[in-house]
């Protein structure tokens, strides 16, 4: 009897020790480390089998633009080119499905400014795609900042009531958004370039996964798995946006049309809806006003346009314009100092995250959850984005959580450096105004690379900076 009782005690003790053994490691956070790659990999979707419909073709360099607005060299041969639109002669015609429109029509629609009659607002950030994506050429950079806010409940990020995106503008002073002092997590994010993003869209999931898997554990990035709105929210590896929050250009465009311009459309993904949801494209973002959160959706007094405000044509035009742009090309000619700095980029470890080369999936590959087939103009192309499209903790994290979980609050996507010579505000917050200082702001997973940069001679540091400014 005593033995039995003692055995029970031991069993209870064993159970207790087991629980303690499990709980202790979980309760200990390592504050400056990146997230567990294992957990991340487990939630990665398997893309529609690459290669199933693939067409064998030689791998070639992607076409590039010289990043000069005076040169007419944006089109990469995806779809038909068409002719520049003259409004006095004919209106631009939007596509009805991806790839069946004309580049010049899509570009014209990308450059249009929206009005209240088009559905602009009630809350919005700007009046057109090109107002943010314009420098040096249509589709490229802008100095605009997107404002996001929320607060912490314990260690959990909570969106600002009415949504974490705080719009800069409104069509009515009563709906201009304000945050309370309680929304203590605030972030400004700089506009990214969309040039060459069609190639980025055509990088297969596995290619991105293999690249991250090859990174040393100390700098390994976190890939996101995000819904493709046009594929019934099938998950795909994210690559667009500072949090890698979009995987397809159509999802990105639909989101931006609603969230940046206030124009509802079936691809806007509001509330996690896919484009096939019966009520897709029928909700405006609520306005977070000083008086509280206001529903501004039609037929509210703030929104005179019935939803969806776009039938999808504009969104597909934006998408295909971006998909048909060439990749940012290098400075030409490349200065001797930049040539000298080229190998230093790898030597100090920058290339560990700022991945130099990717090859897109073969033409014919089904991507985006089966919603898009890689066209010949974008397939089997070598690109040089200088990003791994993964999230990292480099000490500059903004604390904002989007659709990759709480663990990514202080992680930011590796900034693609292609075309960086065309801008003069750096890092995700645009608060650094020279490359040297941007490098010094790198900490966390980028600490070793920063220290290796600092260990270079002064002339080597200069050469490496010239190399970066030649991208």
């Amino acid at each position, binding site marked *: 009897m005593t033995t039995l009782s003692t055995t029970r005690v031991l069993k209870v003790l064993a159970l207790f020790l087991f629980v303690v053994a499990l709980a202790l490691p979980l309760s200990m956070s390592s504050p400056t480390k990146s997230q567990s790659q294992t957990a991340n990999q487990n939630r990665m979707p398997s893309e529609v089998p690459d290669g199933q419909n693939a067409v064998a073709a030689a791998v070639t360099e992607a076409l590039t633009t010289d990043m000069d607005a005076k040169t007419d060299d944006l089109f990469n041969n995806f779809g038909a080119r068409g002719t520049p639109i003259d409004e006095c002669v004919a209106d631009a015609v939007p596509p009805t499905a991806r790839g069946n429109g004309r580049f010049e029509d899509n570009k014209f629609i990308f450059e249009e400014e929206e009005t209240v009659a088009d559905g602009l607002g009630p809350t919005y950030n700007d009046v057109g795609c090109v107002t943010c994506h314009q420098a040096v050429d249509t589709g490229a950079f802008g100095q605009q900042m997107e404002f996001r806010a929320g607060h912490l409940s314990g260690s959990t990020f909570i969106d600002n009531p009415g949504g974490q995106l705080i719009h800069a503008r409104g069509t009515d002073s009563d709906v201009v958004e304000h945050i309370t002092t309680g929304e203590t997590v605030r972030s400004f994010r700089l506009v990214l370039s969309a040039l060459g993003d069609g190639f980025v869209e055509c990088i297969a999931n596995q290619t991105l996964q293999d690249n991250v898997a090859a990174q040393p554990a100390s700098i390994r990035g976190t890939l996101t798995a995000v819904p493709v709105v046009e594929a019934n929210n099938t998950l795909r590896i994210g690559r667009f946006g500072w949090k890698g929050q979009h995987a397809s250009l159509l999802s990105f465009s639909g989101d931006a049309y609603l969230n940046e311009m206030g124009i509802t459309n079936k691809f806007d993904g509001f509330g996690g809806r896919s484009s096939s949801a019966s009520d897709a494209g029928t909700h405006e973002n609520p306005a977070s006003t000083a008086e509280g959160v206001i529903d501004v959706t039609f037929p509210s007094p703030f929104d005179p346009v019935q939803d969806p405000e776009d039938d999808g044509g504009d969104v597909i035009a934006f998408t295909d314009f971006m998909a048909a742009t060439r990749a940012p090309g290098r400075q030409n000619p490349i200065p001797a100092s930049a040539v000298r700095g080229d190998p230093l980029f790898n030597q100090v470890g920058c290339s560990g995250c700022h991945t130099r080369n990717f090859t897109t999936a073969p033409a014919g590959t089904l991507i985006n959850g089966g919603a898009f087939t890689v066209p010949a103009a974008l397939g089997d192309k070598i690109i040089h984005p200088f990003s791994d499209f993964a999230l990292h903790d480099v000490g500059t994290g903004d604390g904002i959580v989007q659709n990759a979980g709480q663990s990514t609050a202080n992680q930011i996507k590796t900034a693609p450096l292609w075309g960086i010579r065309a801008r003069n505000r750096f890092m995700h917050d645009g*608060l650094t*105004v020279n490359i040297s*200082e941007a490098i010094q702001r790198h900490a966390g997973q980028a600490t070793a690379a920063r220290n290796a940069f600092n260990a270079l001679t*002064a002339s080597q540091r200069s050469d490496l900076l010239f190399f970066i400014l030649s991208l």
Partner: protein
Amino acid sequence: MFDLSCLKAAKDLTNSSKALLIVLVTSTTLSCFGCASKPSELGSKSGQGPQVSHPGETSEASTLRVSEVEEAVRRVFKDNALIAQDYKPSFVVGDFNGDQSPDVAVVLKVAQGKTSQMNQQFPPWILKDPFVTAVPGMAPLRVSDDETLLAIIHGYGSEGWRDPQATQTYLLKNSTGAKIEARTKAEVIAANQGKKIPQLRGDLISEVLKGKTGYLYYAVSTYSWYDPSTFNGEPMVRPVHGVDVRN
């Protein structure tokens, strides 16, 4: 007695149960050791507050820390800057950038004849003036002869500013006042109830600067000055839609 009964009970266990018990005890022990090797929480997180050091003190621990700070300064500045020994204290420790790794803020003097090195084109530190907002095209800040500067060396990992990899440094002009102390975020908030407070990420550096008591705090890309008597919003430029907005 208890031990004996446990041993007796252990004898009665099956071999598999014994193996399970051994695994569990081992894993628990390892977890505890793992716990001990994790980064220790900073004083501010455990309620102890940031550490303040006085180089003038004669204790062995204090002397050791001075040498450690000197080593950290050499790591970043080589022989181009020295700890300003006339400042008491000349350094304070806290988690100023809020990454849970201890940082050190140290008052420096430019070393004799090293002004040009302190103004090198691509320095391994970030030179800032909390009272000047950087904008593209602005003439670069410069360090002058005999200038007193405040260097904040950010920590790396559990060893913080002592870690050989801890080199990220903000070098601040016009930021060395009197009565330099480290203060936790909670202390500053409590001391300034009813007043506007900037978005704080970590500990702050309290000091008397230009005759006013205020705080230096980490503002993501720089360190800013918080004067509770005059603060009316973040003193930073936020370029929104082409307009520099001061809020």
